């Protein structure tokens, strides 16, 4: 699904990723953990093609294609989805219109016929139900006046509708209470079908209580410093990131 080799990247001339390697096979769930400033969100933005991030070295292969060669929307249409940590508002554009355009842009790429308004509405209603958002949210402007939790659930709702191949969740747990956390986790779990892959970026272990990862990677100082199974997340929870060692701890404060 995804192969990242020796990835070096910077933002505003500041080196963030310094030789990151990661391989994800279809159906796998990988959690990326790490202290603040380790480059977790940067990874999500680089994978999705956000401007302002310079890749100076390394390769990324996505479903056999060179990911870095593809435009943002091309990546999205080929099944890469990013659930934003801070989704932006688009006033006046209804969630419904936005998502219908989005779903159909992706269907077109797959050679499928566009959904009619009725067909789309049916799917959208189901997706809303899954993340416990009332149907009013379809009529409201994209993220307009949504609470933090509503925004996060809205992102998961979009993920369900778009049926991506690779889902990147950027701190989808931050700012959520336990109930909302469960809703988000259930939404994600419902999409695990043995083929779809996930990258779960999180600072805390608690989301991983609900979404069981196959692998956990600790990102620090722009590299994966340790990989393991779900138990690694538990260790982090107990001991904090301090166990990473002296030199890493120092840089993570930067």
């Amino acid at each position, binding site marked *: 699904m995804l192969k990242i080799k020796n990835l070096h990247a910077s933002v505003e001339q500041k080196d963030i990723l310094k030789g990151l390697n990661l391989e994800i096979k279809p159906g796998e769930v990988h959690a990326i953990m790490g202290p603040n400033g380790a480059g977790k969100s940067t990874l999500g933005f680089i994978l999705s093609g956000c401007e302002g991030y310079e890749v100076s070295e390394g390769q990324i292969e996505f479903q056999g294609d060179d990911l870095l060669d593809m435009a943002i929307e091309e990546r999205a249409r080929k099944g890469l989805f990013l659930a934003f940590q801070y989704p*932006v508002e688009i006033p006046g554009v209804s969630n419904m219109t936005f998502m219908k355009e989005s779903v159909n*842009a992706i269907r077109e790429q797959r050679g499928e016929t566009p959904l009619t308004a009725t067909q789309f509405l049916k799917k959208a209603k189901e997706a809303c139900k899954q993340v416990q958002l009332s149907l009013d949210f379809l009529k409201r402007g*994209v993220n307009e006046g949504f609470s933090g939790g509503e925004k996060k659930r809205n992102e998961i709702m979009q993920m369900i509708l778009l049926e991506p191949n690779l889902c990147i969740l950027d701190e989808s747990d931050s700012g959520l209470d336990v109930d909302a956390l469960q809703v988000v986790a259930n939404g994600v779990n419902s999409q695990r079908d043995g083929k779809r892959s996930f990258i779960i970026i999180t600072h805390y272990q608690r989301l991983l209580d609900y979404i069981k990862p196959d692998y956990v990677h600790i990102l620090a100082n722009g590299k994966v410093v340790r990989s393991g199974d779900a138990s690694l997340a538990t260790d982090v929870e107990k001991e904090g990131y301090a166990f990473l060692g002296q030199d890493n701890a120092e840089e993570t404060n930067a």
Partner: protein
Amino acid sequence: MSEQIEQALSRKYDAGFVSDIESETFPAGLDEEVIRRISTMKEEPDWMLAWRLRAYSSWLSMEEPEWAHVNYPKIDFKAISYYSAPKSMKDKPQSLDEVDPELLRTYEKLGIPLYEQEMLAGVAVDAVFDSVSVVTTYRAKLEEAGVIFCPISEAVHKYPELVKKYLGTVVPRSDNYFAALNSAVFTDGSFVYIPKGVRCPMELSTYFRINEQNTGQFERTLIVAEEGSHVSYLEGCTAPQRDENQLHAAVVELVVMDDAQIKYSTVQNWYPGDENGKGGIYNFVTKRALCHTNAKVSWTQVETGSAITWKYPSCILKGDNSVGEFYSVALTRGMQQADTGTKMIHLGKNTKSTIISKGISAGKSNNTYRGLVHMGAKADGARNFTQCDSLLIGDRCGAHTFPYIESRNPSAIVEHEATTSKVSDEQMFLCQQRGLDPEKAVSMIVNGFCKEVFKELPMEFAVEAGKLLEISLEGSIG
């Protein structure tokens, strides 16, 4: 990101073509003789010629206004031809079958299939091709309701009493420089008369198109809604690409009697000029409504075209309880300049007005809202609400707001709200991450911004306006 937006905005103007129809065009220049010739060509009665000549003499004594926030080289009024008619129209066609097929193809290219409109949309179309109205449909059905909808040149012959009674009563001959010019040389336009208590059975629609090179076009539209009547009027325009600047100075007068309502919607996408500001239409328009007791006028405009737009659809709220509304979307890109807004003149008691203006600037364009809210001394309990929003795309464009508020009545309430925002990189990224290309993303964000205005447009027009905005943002026009 802004590069992508730039790219999206720099496409060619799709409606830019010149149809090959033989025309009879006057040589350039303006004097009394030209006005006499226009009048003769149209076989006008003497009173009409006299009216034109009085307007011309007023115009001669007036100065071209310079207060608008627009820059353009001085217009040489002697270099303009003041009359152009498609030659084959000398013997006016009685039905579409008699219309020059080239002309019909021109309309088709613009997406105005008259046949289809006739059959499907139920819209009566009075199509103005350059200066002579060529096709008028659905006349019979309107006649049944007692509604008159015809070219104003025809109304001068068939309904001289009505034209004489109302022409120039809302926009006087010497109202302003461009209105005076129009009064002297207007060639055609629409005339609408809705009798007392009649609800017009269909939306009335006029498509304008400037076709002849170097030909100024001077439409004159007069709509009279008698007591308790109701009409919705649609106006839409495109123009082919050319190098020379074209002057357009239209006048629209609405007479709204007691308890009557007029809804006037415009979609304007004339050629805006190339990316260096070369070519493009100069659009100097005077639109005004006179509202009697309990009357209501609603102006809705979507302005995406023209190199220069100078336009302030206004309401004189003379009668008590009369209502004026102005909903506007003005989009400028490239080197376009728009100075547009409205005037709400509250004279009667408990008069109400609402102004919603959405300005979108891209490229190196300048977009100005200019609005006057006047509360007269006798306008007890009058109210106005103004909302003025600007959206910037890129960092080389300008948005300007000039609200003028004059209140001579302590019981009058005037509210003004204004915002300025940008299409952000974050919004673009979100849209693209969801699979939308940059063009679609910009157009969606802009459409969202304009939502409050679009919902005021008649259904079929709202769709067209959204599409127009999308095409405009793709860079085909303004």
